[in-house]
Every structure is written in structure tokens, then in C-alpha cells.
């Protein structure tokens, strides 16, 4: 299937993978790890151009699997969490596909029978981190290697959104509500994080909310706006994750409370960070600003949604301001010793590639959108941006990096404990008592005979 969406996403996959692969070249533990990004690229291409849902699901799973190995190289628990959640999503999609294939032919990637719509949304929801199903996203993004985080946030979650784009052909209020909740949740959580990559992860969630809300309009305009935002966000977030990874590489910590004056040590890195974050925050005339404008235009009929998204945009700005202020500008807090480590040239190269792609995307977007659209909301957007920065400066107590905030990850351990109770019951059933086994068996025999009664 070739149309603007898949063409753009195919190109985007290559643009995302090359810098990520370059960045990870030196850090890779073995040659096999150097192969992973390219495998991911291959599978992603197959998934994006899949003729039917089955092929899409298969290659989506395989791309998740490559990223799982990536995450596994850094943190085992998180990698398993990621894998299980992705497999669960894939399982839902597979079930839905099988049910849709009931008539004979495999269902093409597109709308499905209305009864199966929720199943597909849940399945894609695991991939695209819809609220409630996003539990894997913050830990995975924060604990993965930087290049994997870039691919995850920049591309892997977008493949879920791609599925939603194909799936949704009519306005879907439920999905739009989910998008709004996502945007708000991400924007609320992001500025309160102390882990730089976790902050970026929640910001990803917020941006995904924008995209999902736009997709949920079910209109061509909405899809186009979502596509533009996907590109803008992928490039900006890829660069941001790489800068965050570089910070970790240099200072050995992601903790915003302990990071030092990186802007003094690495002015270029700070410049790259600014390029990405200004685009992400929606500065007018950047691709991010244009995309957000397009999303808001697509949501013209939904005033409430628009308002929430505007507020969420301010949250993103505050989060980025926090990262800039504590990660790059603060001084004297760092408890490390000695000079920061130098960064390898490949890392610089990869980040430069991202930045170049971002700038080129901005120019291209400006050209296609035209000056009229680009200047339409300049004043409001700038005011929102400046307002958010002022809020951040005026309310330092809220954004102090030593705060801990309630997080979705806190729920994982109790949920795991809840699940083990029935499991241990089941285990106690297999007690080794032969008579007990036989009694169970004869009981079941009676059940079988009852079920077979005439």
C-alpha cells in the first residue's frame, strides 16, 4: 500500500534509524547489537507497507522483539516488561485479525468490522501507549540505551499510531477522550520527573496524546496533521533522547538533581538540545509549531479538546525548561569529580544528522504550509510558550528535582503481587495426593457426563 502516510513513515524510519545506529555503534556490546537497528528498520518497513493486518502484526511484533534485545542489554526487568506488554498488544491484534479473517480473505490494513474495533484499539493501544496501557512506556524509555529510546519514542510507538490511523475512518469520541487524557497526563507528569529520560518519556506520552486526538477526528485533515506531528516529534524526540544519553555518558547520571553545568562543558550539545526542544515546544515557524497548529486546526470543532491540548503544550514547555535549567544551566550541584568524559565523534555526527533533518523538515513544512498558515497563530503560540517559561521560573518549588511524584510504575509491584495469589492457589492444587487427584478427576467426569446429557 503506498500513500502519503506510508511513504512518509517509510522515509522517516530510515531517517530515524541511521543516526540511532551511528550513535550506538561504539557502545554496542557485540557486533550483533550493531545489527539490531537495521533489523528494526527492515521490520518497520515491512510493517508500514504491509498489505494486511496479519503481516502488519507479525512485523510489528518482530520490530518490538529487536527493541527488546536492545533494552535487554541495559536492564532485564524493564526489557521483560516491555516485551510482555508488546506481546499482549500483539496477541489482541492477532485475535482481532483472526476474527476479522472469518470470511476467508485476510483483512487489509484499514477499517475493521465495528464489533472488532475495540479489540484492535486495545491491541494498538499497547503499542501506542493509550492511557492505562502506557504502564510500560516510562520505565522502558528511561532505562533503555539512548539510541533505543530514540527509536522507541521516535518510531516504535508511532507504528501503533500508524495502525490507528488506518483503523479510524470515522470520528471516534472515545479515542479522542483517550488522546486528551494522554496529553494531559503526560504534560502533568513530565515536569515533575527527576530522571531526564523519564521526563522525556512522559513528554512523549503527552505528544502521542496530541497525535491520537488528531487521528480520532477521523478526517483526512486530522490524519495529515497527525502525520506532520509524528515527523516533528520523532525527529525532535530522537535528538532529545540522544542528548540526554550524551549527558548520561558524560556525567554518569540522568538525575536532574545531580547533573552539572553541561552548557559550559558542551555548548554545542546545549545548542542541539535547544534546537530540538524549541521545535518540540511548538515555537512558531518550526516544524513542531506548524504541526501543532495543524492539529489544532483539525480539531476546530472540538473546543474543549483544543483547550486541554493548549494547556498540555504548556506542560511540555515547562518540562523542557526544567531539563534545560537543571540539566544544562545549573551550577555547583554536581557531586561528581573531575572532568566530564568526552563524547565520541559518532555521537556528535548522529546528533548533527538529527538536527539537520529537523531543520530541513521545518523548511519543507513551511514551504508546503505557506506563510499564511504559518503566521496565523504566531501571537497566541508565542504567548503560551513565554507564559509557560514564566510559570516555570515563578514556581520553582513545584519543579525542584528532589521531589518524588506518584507514578504508574508504582502500581506494577502491587499488581504483580495480586496476580501471584491465584497462581499459588493453583500450585497448591497439585499437591501430590493421588487420592485427591482421582477425586478431582471423578468430579470432572461427572461434569462431562452432565454436559453431554441429552
Amino acid at each position: 500500500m503506498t500513500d502519503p502516510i506510508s511513504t512518509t513513515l517509510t522515509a522517516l524510519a530510515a531517517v530515524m534509524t541511521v543516526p540511532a545506529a551511528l550513535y550506538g555503534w561504539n557502545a554496542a556490546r557485540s557486533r550483533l547489537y550493531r545489527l539490531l537497528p537495521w533489523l528494526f528498520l527492515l521490520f518497520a518497513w515491512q510493517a508500514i507497507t504491509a498489505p494486511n493486518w496479519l503481516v502488519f502484526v507479525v512485523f510489528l511484533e518482530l520490530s518490538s522483539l529487536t527493541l527488546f534485545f536492545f533494552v535487554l542489554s541495559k536492564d532485564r526487568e524493564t526489557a521483560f516488561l516491555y516485551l510482555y506488554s508488546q506481546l499482549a498488544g500483539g496477541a489482541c491484534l492477532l485475535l482481532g485479525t483472526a476474527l476479522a479473517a472469518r470470511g476467508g480473505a485476510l483483512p487489509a490494513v484499514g477499517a475493521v468490522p465495528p464489533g472488532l474495533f475495540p479489540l484492535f484499539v486495545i491491541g494498538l493501544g499497547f503499542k501506542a501507549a493509550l492511557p492505562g496501557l502506557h504502564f510500560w512506556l516510562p520505565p522502558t524509555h528511561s532505562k533503555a540505551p539512548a539510541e533505543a529510546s530514540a527509536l522507541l519514542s521516535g518510531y516504535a510507538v508511532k507504528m501503533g499510531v500508524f495502525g490507528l490511523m488506518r483503523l479510524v475512518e470515522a470520528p471516534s469520541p472515545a479515542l479522542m477522550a483517550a488522546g486528551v487524557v494522554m496529553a494531559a497526563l503526560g504534560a502533568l507528569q513530565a515536569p515533575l520527573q527527576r530522571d531526564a529520560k523519564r521526563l522525556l518519556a512522559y513528554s512523549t506520552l503527552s505528544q502521542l496524546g496530541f497525535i491520537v486526538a488528531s487521528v480520532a477526528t477521523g478526517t483526512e485533515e486530522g490524519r495529515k496533521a497527525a502525520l506532520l506531528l509524528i515527523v516533528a516529534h520523532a525527529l525532535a524526540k530522537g535528538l532529545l533522547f540522544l542528548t540526554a544519553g550524551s549527558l548520561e555518558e558524560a556525567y554518569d547520571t540522568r538525575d536532574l538533581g545531580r547533573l552539572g553545568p553541561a552548557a559550559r562543558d558542551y555548548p554545542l550539545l546545549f545548542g542541539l538540545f535547544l534546537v530540538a526542544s524549541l521545535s518540540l515546544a511548538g515555537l512558531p515557524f518550526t516544524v513542531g509549531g506548524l504541526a501543532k497548529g495543524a492539529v489544532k486546526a483539525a480539531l476546530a470543532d472540538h473546543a474543549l479538546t483544543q483547550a486541554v491540548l493548549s494547556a498540555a503544550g504548556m506542560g511540555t514547555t515547562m518540562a523542557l525548561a526544567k531539563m534545560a535549567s537543571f540539566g544544562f544551566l545549573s551550577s555547583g550541584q554536581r557531586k561528581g569529580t573531575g572532568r566530564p568524559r568526552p563524547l565520541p565523534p559518532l555521537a556528535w555526527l548522529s546528533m548533527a544528522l538529527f538536527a539537520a533533518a529537523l531543520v530541513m523538515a521545518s523548511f519543507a513544512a513551511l514551504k508546503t504550509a505557506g506563510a499564511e498558515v504559518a503566521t496565523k497563530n504566531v501571537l497566541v503560540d508565542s504567548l503560551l510558550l513565554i507564559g509557560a517559561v514564566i510559570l516555570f521560573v515563578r514556581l520553582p518549588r513545584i519543579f525542584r528535582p528532589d521531589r518524588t511524584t506518584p507514578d504508574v510504575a508504582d502500581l506494577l509491584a502491587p499488581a504483580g503481587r495480586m496476580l501471584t495469589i491465584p497462581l499459588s492457589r493453583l500450585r497448591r492444587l497439585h499437591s501430590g495426593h493421588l487420592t485427591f487427584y482421582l477425586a478431582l478427576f471423578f468430579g470432572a467426569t461427572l461434569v462431562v457426563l452432565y454436559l453431554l446429557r441429552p
Partner: protein
Amino acid sequence: MNPVLAIVAPFLAAFTIPLFFVFRKKWVGTAVILFGVLSALTALFVAAGGEAVTVMGGWQPEVGIALVVDSLTTAFLILASLGFSASLSAAAETFGYGPWRFYVLFFLSWAATNGIILTGDLFNLFVFFEIFSVAAYLVVAYPPRSWQAIEAGFKYLIFGTVGALFLLIGIAYAFMATGQLNMAILARVLPRAPEATLSVVIGCLVVGLFIKSGTVPGHFWLPDAHSSAQTPVSALLSGVFVKVSLYALIRLAFLLFGSADDRVFFVLLLFGTVTLCLGHLMAFQQEDIKRLLAYSTVAQVGTIVIAIGCASSGGVTAAVYHAFNHMAAKMGLFLVSGVLAEDRASRDIAQMGGLFRHRPLFVLAFCLFAASIAGIPPLNGFMSKWFLLVAAAERGALIPAAAVVAGTVLSAAYYLRPITAFFGPAETEPPHHRPHPVTGAIVALLALLCLVLALAPYIGPLKEGLLAVGRDTVNGARYIERVLR
């Protein structure tokens, strides 16, 4: 080739090996190998010979014992000869040729297996099942030195005998109601029996086969037996023995039970789903690697029972295809884990660190088999699960289908535990290192088989064959016509 030869060849082996032991001790090894090759080849020739019906002793099918070869028989004959050959080679390497009693039991079970697959007579089926079971109890407990083996063998014996009793009651009732034992004739006359009788017959047969195949109410013996037996025997149990009972279930379900509208298939779906969930959930909690594999077998049995419960040709195709996939992958898993457990002198997963460095090829094969069983996309396990899902969707069996896909996630979860352990750091160097050339070769062949099976839906003849199995099996009238001519 006359189908009876497929039964006679292993029987011949079972009866002559003791003679060799008494008169020519040195020839026992050669005889075992030769008879193994002979038995496998006969079974394969019978399978390759195409559809045939032979009635023993020249009687009419009403009186004599009919041996029937059709596409389902062919599929399972191939499965059995592959499984038995692989297990025999592994056993020859593990045990040597000293324990001739083991080989007697082995060939006895082989003969009985071929008999179960070929026979067209209900009572004959029961007799072969009993020979098969008695041999199975003994090979599970072989060698009877560890308490686990004896306890597992005893529990298997008690359960198996109860199952045989239920089979006997079912067959006796069917006979009392109709006066017939030939399956083709029974398929014609049994529907005319009173409804209540029919329910009892079907109920008893289904419950008996549940025990023999390890479906939920009768699965309790299975993890014990699989985990306590010697490695080649575990592989055989999981790869072939369980499948034979499932063959009988498929055959009887479509030939005899098809008339009892949908109730029997509902029962199969219900218990299959329960089996699947229980197997996966129990495997999730195991620390012992062989026990984990055993519970995974329980879950896969549930999968196949669900496939049978779909009551369609697609379902049978999925069941047979999955039986093959599970045979290839699970035999490989048991063989590899046996070798690795021997290296570590422990079956505890936590002790399995550093084995990737030690035996990289075995561990990689383990990963392949595990991915296949768990249903990672391009592999054979995924293919058969997809067939099963489509069949279940067509039947409208939503909950079993959901259980199957949920089981995929769970099985990925529990197979990753040993795999990460293998790749993890080693606390100590493995104390044993015995070369296993034969087992290694078999594992490689099984891995190859996995890959070939993954391609089966794209290879014309294989795909046609699988679809034909489904079509022919569901069409009971065709079977009846061919046997009674």
C-alpha cells in the same frame, strides 16, 4: 505394503531382542539399530503407500479386524516414526545397549502406537492402548532407581488404569447398544442408539482419552512422568505418546461423536481451554526446567484439544499441524535441557547460568525451539496457532481463541526465564562435560524440521497434504464407505 507390517516389525523387535540377549549378547546393539531402522521404514512405507484397507484373516469387516490407512493415519504414522527414531537414537547414546529390557519396552510401545494409529476396530484400539500404556508406565519408571521415577510411574499407572477402565466401559456400552465393534459400522449404527446411551458412551470414551492424553482432569500424571523420566523417554512421552491419544480423540470425535450434535465439541473446547490456561499458569511457576517443559506440554495438549473442538476441517488441520510442530520443538527442548541439566548436575533453572559459553549450539537450538513453541511469528508454532485461531474464529469460539493468544504471551514469559539464565553469568564451571554427538545431530535435525514445518504452508504438497487431512477426517461418510466398500 501391508499395513500390518508396521505393527509386526516393532513387535518382532520386542520379541527377538531378549533372544539376542540370551544367545548373542554382542549383537543386541546392532539388532536394536537394525530393528529401529526397519520399524521406521516399514511405517513410512505404509504411510507412503497411500490409502488402503486391510481386514485381518480374510473376514468381513463386521467380524475381522480392519486396518485402515487414510490421510490422518498417514500423518500420525510419520509423526510416530520420526519421534520414535529420534528418541531411539538419543536413548542408544544415553543408555548404551546394556539395558535390553528398555528396548523391549520401547519397541513394544512402538508397535502398540502403530497399532492404535492403524486399527479400525474399537476393542482392538483398547487392547493396543493397554499394551502401549503398560510399556509407557515401565519406560517412565526406567531405570527404577530414583524415587521420582518410581513415584511418577506408579501415579501414571493408577491414572492410566482408571482411564483404561473408562475406555473399557465406553467401548462395552457401545458394543452393548449396537453389537458392533468396527468403527466404520459403529459410526453408521451408533447414532441410532438411545440418546442417553450415546451420552454415556461418548462421556466415558472422552474421559478415558482425557487421561491418556493429559487433558485437564486427567493431567496430573503428566508433569510427574515427563519430569521424572530419563531424557529420551521424556522426549518420547511429549513428542509421541501424548499425540497418539490425541489421534484417537480426533478419530473417535469425528467418526463416532459427530452425531451427538455440538455437545461433545463444546466439552472439548471447554476442557481444552482449561487445560491450556492451567498448563501455562503452572509452567510459569516452575523452577525445575523439565517440569516447566512438562507443564508446557499440558498447555499444548490443551491447544490441540481446542483445535479438535473447533469441529471443522480447518480445526483438524491445525491440530495435526500443531501436533507435528509440538513434536519437533518439544522433543528438541527435552533433549537439549537433558544435556544441559546433566552438565549442571541439576534441573534447577537458577543453576543454569553460563551454559551459553559452555554449549553455544545447544543453547541456540533451545532458543529456536522455545521461540517456536511460544509462537514467535515466522516460526512453525506461530503458523499452526494462526490456523487454529482462524478455525476457532470461524467456529465462533472467542474465549478459547483469546486463551490461545494469551497463552502465547505467557509462554514467551516462562521460556525467557531459562533462556536468560543460559545467557547469564556462571557461578561455577559446569562439572560435567560429556560429548553428545548423536543427541546434537538429532537436535540439529529437529531444528531443521522446525524450519521446514514453518515453511509448510508455502510448500504446495505439504500444504495440500495438511488440508487433505482435515477434509478427509471431518468427512466420516468417506471413511465408512472406504472401509465397508
